[in-house]
């Protein structure tokens, strides 16, 4: 008799739990399913240089097409590419090209990247506004960040130790400068590695002996004015060439400003309808106008044609 009641109690307890669990699952599903069915989700991840730009593009796009939800995350180009390979994002932002190692890993995992150039970025070299230096050659910039030139005096500045600011090794800007300006030499171990473009600007504003590199988009405040307290250096390809500022749009369009690069997005294989539609928006005159407004440069005809091919 006692045993029976015990069993009965246990039974009610177990069925009770089961019922409660089932109810919970049902509630969860009813919450998730309709929203998933109604909204198309696009996950974008990668370059910190691009995160603001793509965020604004996404907001404009979502305002026009409320059926799509786009989430944009930073983390660096390497992070985005890794996420695309691991299948945790739909679209990777990257401000440098794929490394061979990454391509190998992608093909190994059956990921076939398609690459779209959505804007042009010019990497600007910035110093404090009180620094008398105005122009550097590519070689000088390289030597500074390798730690070969250590004092501003050598470059015509004050007798002051150069204080270096840079990005962390997961940044596309870091690899881009290392490849194109440092000629694949090691960065000086003295470089202070900051957590993003904005932090470099803040540091340079306070540091009279500072020099750093940031994307052109970060040189401007919300009103499109050049940030106070910094000076954007003009760059010469070599001693004999003329100097160009990254603020001079014509020089960047024509690739005369030496430190410029395309900004890319990659998909795994042919982009899905939702993703393709978003990319088309980015490449449309409207999207490219946003690109310009954010301080980057629109892409030329050649890259545009290549993008079209990749969309099909």
């Amino acid at each position, binding site marked *: 008799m006692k045993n029976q*009641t*015990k069993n009965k*109690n*246990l039974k009610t*307890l177990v069925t009770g739990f089961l019922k409660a669990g089932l109810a919970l699952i049902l509630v969860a599903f009813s919450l998730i399913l309709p929203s998933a069915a109604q909204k198309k989700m696009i996950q974008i991840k990668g370059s910190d240089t691009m995160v603001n730009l793509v965020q604004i593009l996404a907001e404009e796009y979502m305002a026009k097409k409320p059926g799509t939800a786009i989430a944009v995350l930073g*983390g*660096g180009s*390497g*992070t985005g590419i*890794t996420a695309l390979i*691991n299948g945790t994002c739909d679209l990777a932002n990257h401000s440098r090209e794929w490394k061979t*190692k*990454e391509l190998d*890993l992608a093909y190994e995992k059956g990921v076939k990247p398609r690459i779209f150039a959505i804007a042009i970025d010019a990497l600007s070299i910035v110093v404090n506004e009180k620094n008398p230096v105005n122009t550097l050659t590519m070689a000088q910039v390289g030597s500074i960040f390798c730690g070969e030139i250590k004092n501003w005096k050598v470059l015509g500045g004050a007798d*002051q*130790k150069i*204080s270096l600011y840079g990005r*962390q*090794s*997961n940044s596309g800007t870091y*690899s881009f400068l*290392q*490849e194109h300006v440092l000629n*694949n*030499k*090691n*960065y*000086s*171990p*003295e*470089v*202070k*590695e*900051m*957590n993003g473009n904005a*932090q470099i600007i*803040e*540091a340079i504003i*306070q*540091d*009279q*002996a*500072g020099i750093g590199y940031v994307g052109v988009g970060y040189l401007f405040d919300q009103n499109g004015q050049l940030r106070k307290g910094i000076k954007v250096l003009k760059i010469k390809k070599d001693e004999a060439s003329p100097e160009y500022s990254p603020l001079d749009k014509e020089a960047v369009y024509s690739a005369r400003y030496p430190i410029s690069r395309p900004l890319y997005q990659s998909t795994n294989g042919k982009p899905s309808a939702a993703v393709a539609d978003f990319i088309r928006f980015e490449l449309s005159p409207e999207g490219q106008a946003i690109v310009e407004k954010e301080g980057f440069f629109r892409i030329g005809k050649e890259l545009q044609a290549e993008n079209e091919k990749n969309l099909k």
Partner: protein
Amino acid sequence: MASVKKKGLISDLKERLIQHLFEMSGWLALVVLLGIFALLLTTAIPAFKEINLKEFFTSSRWDPTSPEKPEYGILSMVVSTMLVTAGALAIAFPLGLGVAAYLSDVASHKVREIVKPVVELLAAIPSVVVGFIGLTLVGPLIARIFKLSNGLNALNGSLLLAIMALPTVISISEDSLQAVPQAYVEASLALGANRWQTLVRVKIPAAISGIAASFMLGLGRAIGETMTVLMATGNARSFPHGFLDSVRTLSANIAIELGEVPYYTTHYYALFALGLILFVMTFVINLTADLILEKQKRKLQ
């Protein structure tokens, strides 16, 4: 009659269920700790297939993504971690002990009731906020005082970590000073000692193991802190020559590089080796603190 019996049975069952649940939670903590250790160990070991152990511990060059030759030397990061932590404790410990002594011996009840919660609230400030203060306020201040071009250095990190370790140091020191039996204090005062003498020669020695534990726990808090040092110390990889050099700590390096690293490469495994070293360091420190606290409890009983 029957319904009483039924009720008794249900509450009996409930009690046993809850007891098992608690027991399981206790074991879970242990399982998680062992699991983390095992994971770190197994993921760290493959790193040493390609990295020379001697180079790993004695070289001060860390540049795994170098296009010239990847280098994996952790010496400057270990020294940097110790430098920043030692600096933090050198500031936080005397200050914290002073505040603890004030709160337990000098402050009126009213003041204590206000100050203690405020101090504990200090622990609730998110580390990223402390880091931001370091970047925009403490850094420029250090630069001006020491006539440097910038204030992103070990001293900045130490100052911020001191602020973060203070609540731990104060709270535990004060508790252990309070726990000294009143009879000790009365005996000391009866022998003609004044309050200062009683504090320094009787209360602090009696509470010394609790105070030591607060020191160790503060140390544990400071050594693993990531975001604050990441933002405030500049993260230069060079070997530090003093508190005014920019430094990169072990935890900051893991935070910087783990997001980007391609999986299952030597660099990836090496980051786990760094994690293992950090884990062992904090584990030893916390264990020591626990042993000391245990000792004090037994002594006072």
